[in-house]
C-alpha cells in the first residue's frame, strides 16, 4: 500500500519517513497554489529527493488555469520528481491533455463522485465514463473520499486496471469561493466583489469547529473548505485501492 501525504511549506519535513509519496499544491483554492519559488524552496528542504511527487490542483478560473499552466511548464523543465497531476477540474485535465502529456493525470476526490456513485453497491453505468476518461485522457487512477464507514463499491472486472486512492482522516463536505477569512479580518462590511484575497487563512490557527444541532459529526473549517473526520475505512470496497492519502489539516 502506497502512503501519500499532502505537504506544504509549513509541514515538518523531518517526520515524513513513513510516507512514500508527497502531494504538493492546493486542493480547494487557486489562490493557495504555490509559486515556482515556493516549490523550489520545498524541494530544497526535502531530505529524500527521489520520492515521487504529485501536484494537486483545485477547481479554477482562467487565472488559475494560467497559474497551473506556468507551474506545469516549470515542472516539465526541472528535474524534480513530479510525475502526477491530481485533477479536480476537467479544465485542468484538458490542459494536461493538450500541452503536458508527460504528466499522468489522476481524477481527484472532488470529481470522482461523478464516476463512482458512493451510495450504492455497484454501478456498471460508471463503466462508460471511466472508460471514456481512460481511453481519451489516459486516466489510470481515481481518488475518493472515505465517504461512509459502510460504503460498498464493487468495481466491475473490466475496470480492474484502474487504481484507486482513498483520503483519510478528513472527509470533504463543502467548499466556497466566498471565503470567510477576508471577512473575519475586515472591519467594514463590503460587497463580495470588493474583497481581495491576501491569504488571510494562512495567518489564523483555524481550529474552528461547526456543530449543527441535528447532525452527529462535528465539521472542521480549514481555509475555504469544511470537513468531517473519519478514520475507519470500509472493508466493503472491492476495488484496487493501493494508495492512502493522508490529508492532515
Amino acid at each position, binding site marked *: 500500500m502506497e502512503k501519500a501525504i499532502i505537504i506544504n511549506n509549513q509541514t515538518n519535513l523531518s517526520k515524513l519517513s513513513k510516507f512514500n509519496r508527497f502531494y504538493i499544491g492546493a486542493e480547494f483554492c487557486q489562490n493557495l497554489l504555490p509559486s515556482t519559488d515556493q516549490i523550489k524552496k520545498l524541494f530544497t528542504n526535502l531530505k529524500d529527493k527521489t520520492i515521487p511527487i504529485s501536484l494537486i490542483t483545485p*477547481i*479554477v*478560473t*482562467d*487565472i*488559475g*488555469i494560467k497559474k497551473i499552466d506556468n507551474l506545469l511548464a516549470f515542472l516539465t523543465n526541472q528535474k524534480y520528481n513530479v510525475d502526477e497531476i491530481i485533477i479536480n*477540474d*476537467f*479544465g485542468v*485535465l*484538458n*490542459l494536461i491533455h493538450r500541452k503536458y502529456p508527460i504528466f499522468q493525470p489522476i481524477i481527484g476526490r472532488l470529481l470522482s*463522485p*461523478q*464516476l463512482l*456513485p*458512493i*451510495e*450504492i453497491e*455497484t*454501478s*456498471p*453505468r*460508471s463503466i*462508460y*465514463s471511466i472508460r*471514456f476518461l481512460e481511453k481519451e485522457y489516459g486516466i489510470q487512477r481515481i481518488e475518493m*473520499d472515505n*465517504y461512509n464507514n459502510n460504503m460498498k463499491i464493487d468495481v466491475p472486472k473490466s475496470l480492474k486496471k484502474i487504481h484507486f486512492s482513498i483520503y483519510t482522516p478528513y*472527509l470533504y*463536505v*463543502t*467548499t*466556497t*469561493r*466566498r471565503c*470567510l477569512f477576508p*471577512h*473575519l479580518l475586515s472591519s467594514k462590511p*463590503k*460587497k*463580495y*466583489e470588493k474583497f481581495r484575497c491576501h491569504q488571510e487563512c494562512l495567518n*489564523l*490557527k*483555524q*481550529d*474552528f*469547529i*461547526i*456543530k*449543527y*444541532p*441535528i*447532525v*452527529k*459529526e462535528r*465539521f472542521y473549517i480549514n481555509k475555504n473548505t469544511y470537513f*468531517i473526520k473519519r478514520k475507519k475505512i470500509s472493508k466493503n470496497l472491492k476495488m484496487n485501492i493501493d494508495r492512502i492519502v493522508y490529508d492532515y489539516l
Partner: protein
Amino acid sequence: MNITIGIDKITDITPLSNLGVNEFFCGVIDKSTNGFSNHRPNNNQFNLSNITDLERAIDITHKNKKKIFLALNDNNSHYQHNSQLIKKIQTFDQLNLDGIIINDLSTLVTCKQIKVKTNIHLSSLAICLNSETINFYKKLNVKRIILPHQITPKEYKSIQKNISTNTEVEIFFQKYNACIYIDGLCRYHSKGPFTPTATMPWRLCSVIPKITTANKSDEIYLPKISSLFKNHLPPLDYFGNLYEFNLLKVKQIKLGTRGYPIDKKIEITKYISELIELLNHHVSKKVFCNLAKKIESKYKNINL
C-alpha cells in the same frame, strides 16, 4: 436578454408566457428513487408529476412558441445499471423537448454514445469557471453552458475570448441563486456524508450551527464568524453583475423558482422583465444600478 424560468406545474406556463418568458425548465418525479432526481427533492412541490404531464407541458409551451428544457442534473447514481439510464434518456429524447440539462460525466458520455437528438445544456453544477473546462465539455456535444452562480463578469469575459462563438451561455440572476458554497461540489444537502440525528431540511446550510474553537487566540473571531453563519456573507453585486453580463452579450438569465407559488413566480418575472427593459435603454452602470434599486423596492414578494 431573455428569461429562463423554473416551473413545477403545467398551469405555470401560460401566465408566465404571457409576461414574456421565452424559456422554461422543469423536472419530473423519478419513481426509481426516493432521493433527488434533479438537484431538488423528488416530489411534486418541485417537479411535474409524470411523463404525461411533461408531454402536456411541452405541448402548451410550443403552442405559446416558447422553449422547454428538462432538468436531469443529478448524478443519477440510483441507476444501478446503465441500461436503466439509457432507457430513461431515450424516453425523454423521444419527446419533443428543446433540450435536457445534465451535469454529470456519466450521463453526458451515455448521451454521446446513444447519440441523443435533443440539445444538451450543461448544468451550473458542472462548474465551468474556465475556458478549458468549457472546451472539455464541448467535446461531449454540449450546446449551452449554464454558468455557475458565483461567476463574475470579469471571469466570464476571460472565458469568452477562448471558446467558440456558437457556445450558448446562460447565467443565474445572482440575487436568488448565489449560494455561499460551490453548488455541484457541495455535500451539504440531505444525502451528505454526515449522520442526521433529526429530520433534515434538504439543505443543512439552512440550519444555524454553533461555532467553537480549540485555540484561544482565535476566540476573538468567534462572534464575527458566528454572525457570518447567521447572516451569510455580504451579497453579490447582482445589479452591477447583471449589467456587465448584458454588455458581454449573455442572452439568457435563469431564475431557479421551482417549488414556489405561481404568484411569486409572476412577481419575480415582472421584476426581472423591468430590469431587462431598463438594460435595453443602454444607460450607464451607475444609473442602471440606482434605477434597478428603485424597481426592486416596488416589489414586495420577490425574495426566495
